């Protein structure tokens, strides 16, 4: 073609187009310079040679639907022109971003999948502006968020000034105590009838306890509960993070673990309350353990996730799900120390009082056996523990024969 001929040809015919296909199957062609503004499309064209014809249309990610694509292309069409001033671009952006929240979220998602960072930044800023300064209810309303946290979980960890964590903890424990007393009254009658014998062997127990996943063990009786309590207390075993027991009675145990000087917590939930509980979630705090040297394993309750410092302040709520704070920080220990000062009063002597001696012996034997399996230096540890059991720092809860809880200096109890 001669130069003259070239000049005669209309400019549009020389423009090249790129073919794009959205997730719903529709295909369209877009001017090349506009489409190439998106890094992802650019990559596809250059690296893979796609997009040159209808058959080789570039498949866009699923998050990009046709409506969003057209918005994004509008954005690209404006901004890919090099000669525009900053002021022009800014004012275009301000107008562009005016749309309802739903579309804004979709646009953010679509822009992110096309790797169009300037648009992602623009939409993120707009979303941040929407969220800023609003109350949680308003935000939930705008974004259709489910309000699925319980009252306690909504505890704002950052409430400042007058909330002394100790006072809060005390209040919560008092409230829980009261609830429990009521429940126990009711359940005492039921328990008399439902005396189930559990003939699971120690082996089973072992495998349950040492397994990685928490398993719901149904129908434990007092016997096994006591067994476990004593085992854990007198051994240096470190149990798997989440073990949950469903019993007919709420129990609340905290076991000091001598060599780590920390508190382990077991959560005994009421069978009624949690029969149809959801699957246990992995304790998020396990992630922290890789970072924190002090193993900070807390038992997770079925539905809730623990929350750092809040654990001190969280406690049982509806359905007698019980969980006390577990923390390996000095902060928490101080708190507990102050509140639970009279732990010395509480010891296992009380447990023995109300148990049949034969049963007791059986339990003792089993405990020993079990512990030996778990921990080979059992006798020495036993000695060690017994000799300085009372001086240990962390919280100590003990269980009476009939399951009534005793805690710190709560005079209600006695």
């Amino acid at each position: 073609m001669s130069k003259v001929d070239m000049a005669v040809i209309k400019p549009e015919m020389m423009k090249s187009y790129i073919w794009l296909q959205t997730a719903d199957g529709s295909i369209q062609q877009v001017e090349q310079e506009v489409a190439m503004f998106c890094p992802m499309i650019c990559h596809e064209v250059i690296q893979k040679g796609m997009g040159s014809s209808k058959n080789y249309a570039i498949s866009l990610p699923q998050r990009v639907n046709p409506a969003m694509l057209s918005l994004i292309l509008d954005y690209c069409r404006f901004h890919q022109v090099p000669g525009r001033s900053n002021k022009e671009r800014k004012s275009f952006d301000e107008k562009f971003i005016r749309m309802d929240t739903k579309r804004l979220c979709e646009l953010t998602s679509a822009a992110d999948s096309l790797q169009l960072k300037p648009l992602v930044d623009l939409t993120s800023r707009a979303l941040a502006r929407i969220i800023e300064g609003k109350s949680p209810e308003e935000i939930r309303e705008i974004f259709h968020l489910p309000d699925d946290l319980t009252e306690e979980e909504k505890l704002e960890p950052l409430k400042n000034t007058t909330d002394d964590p100790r006072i809060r903890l005390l209040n919560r424990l008092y409230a829980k105590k009261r609830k429990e007393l009521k429940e126990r009254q009711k359940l005492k009658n039921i328990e008399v009838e439902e005396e189930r014998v559990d003939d699971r062997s120690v082996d089973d127990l072992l495998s349950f306890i040492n397994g990685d996943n928490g398993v719901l063990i149904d129908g434990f009786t007092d016997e096994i509960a006591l067994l476990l309590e004593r085992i854990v207390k007198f051994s240096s075993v470190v149990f798997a993070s989440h073990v949950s027991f469903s019993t007919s009675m709420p129990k609340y145990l905290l076991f000091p673990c001598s060599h780590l000087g920390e508190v382990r917590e077991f959560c005994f939930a009421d069978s009624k309350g949690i029969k149809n509980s959801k699957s246990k979630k992995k304790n998020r705090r396990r992630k922290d353990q890789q970072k924190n040297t002090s193993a900070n394993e807390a038992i997770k309750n079925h539905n809730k996730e623990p929350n750092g410092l809040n654990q001190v302040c969280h406690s049982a709520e509806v359905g007698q799900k019980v969980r006390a704070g577990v923390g390996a920080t000095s902060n928490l220990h101080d708190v507990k120390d102050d509140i639970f000062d009279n732990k010395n009063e509480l010891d296992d002597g009380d447990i023995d009082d109300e148990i049949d001696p034969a049963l007791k012996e059986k339990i003792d034997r089993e405990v020993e056996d079990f512990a030996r399996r778990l921990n080979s230096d059992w006798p020495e540890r036993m000695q060690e523990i017994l000799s300085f059991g009372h001086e240990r720092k962390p919280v100590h809860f003990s269980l009476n024969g009939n399951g009534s809880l005793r805690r710190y200096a709560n005079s209600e109890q006695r």
Partner: protein
Amino acid sequence: MDDVMSRDLISDLPQSIIESILTRLPIRDAVRTSILSSKWRYKWATLTQLVFDEKCVILSNDRCKVEDGLVNFITRTLFLHQGPIHKFQLTTTHLQCCPDIDQWLLFLSRNDIKELVLELGEGEWFRVPSCLFNCKKLTRLDLFRCEFDPPPTFKGFLCLKSLNLHQVLVSPEAIESLISGCPLLESLALSYFDSLALTIRAPNLKFLCLEGEFKDICLENTPLLVAMSVAMYMTDDIAEHFEQSSTCNFNRFLGGVPRLERLIGHIYFTKFLSIGDDLGRLPITYAHLKVVELNQVSFEDMKEILVVLRLITNSPNLRELQISGSSNTLAAIDAPDLDFWEDECPSNCTFKQLRVVRMTDMSGVPHEMEFIKFLLANSPALETMSISPCVYVMDGRLNMLIELLRFRRASAQAEILFIQD
């Protein structure tokens, strides 16, 4: 996923986007998102940027309460946080020296902190704990009103790119060794130091900002310097020290910065440069220098005028020039050396790229007018020359205008704006 209308709009966006949204929120709002729904419980906890400022504080009249509130908030936020923290910024007037800050810094030093900005209140200055010097990954450090005392074993921050010390109590040797010990340093800002004599060796330094009473500054090894801003305050003893000095400050300061693009000088900067014996031709040309701003140039001091001339005649690509004068009119009515302009002034220098000139605080002294004349005659590309008279000059303005009218202009499109306030 039942009813489209009630479907959650935002929680399923990728974490990187959520974080970019949360980062743009004030920290209180970001942490508050943890009570929105179960999915949002910990979305904030992995933010890598924590910025605490006055908005975090719940105001009340009780000082202690405010302080405690802020300390609690920061402590708990750090405690609930998960993962690395790359940026920590604390800017507040409500907090001064406080033991919690040491603990926060210790926590941060274990969490890969990269950018640290600490600006505390005006009370007792905070003493930086030694754990700060263990932050190996630090790329930016901004300290305001602190005591900074590196241990003898401290060699420097190997990744540090930006250093800003404002009103920091530190020994001169410590500063010099800190600067030399940060090989990647690109931006340095030192403000409000007393009588500091400083030699700067920073091979990667691009931006320099100095403000304070400097006894002496020498840029020994800063070949990549792009922009600098210097404000030199001078006390009497520093002035004396200067009188006795014979080294050429101009060369020591501007002798090794061929890539300079912007130069801003305040207060006594030009005077500082003028001290010392003139060693003749300048060894380098400022081929990239585009913007020069010199404030408080005393047009009564010939040496200062020479400094300005030297600078601009060695900058072939100069585009913008701003000079503010500080002359004492009464003293300069009878100005010596006026014949300089006809005899010795470099006559064949043309400012080919000079577009904008702003002369402010002009008193109308002869040297000032000669300088303006010189510029007008040698700037073929000039577009705007704006002149603002000094506020104290009322009578001389008319004379200034009359003189201005006479000056030849090399540029046909040059506008002269006489700005009356």
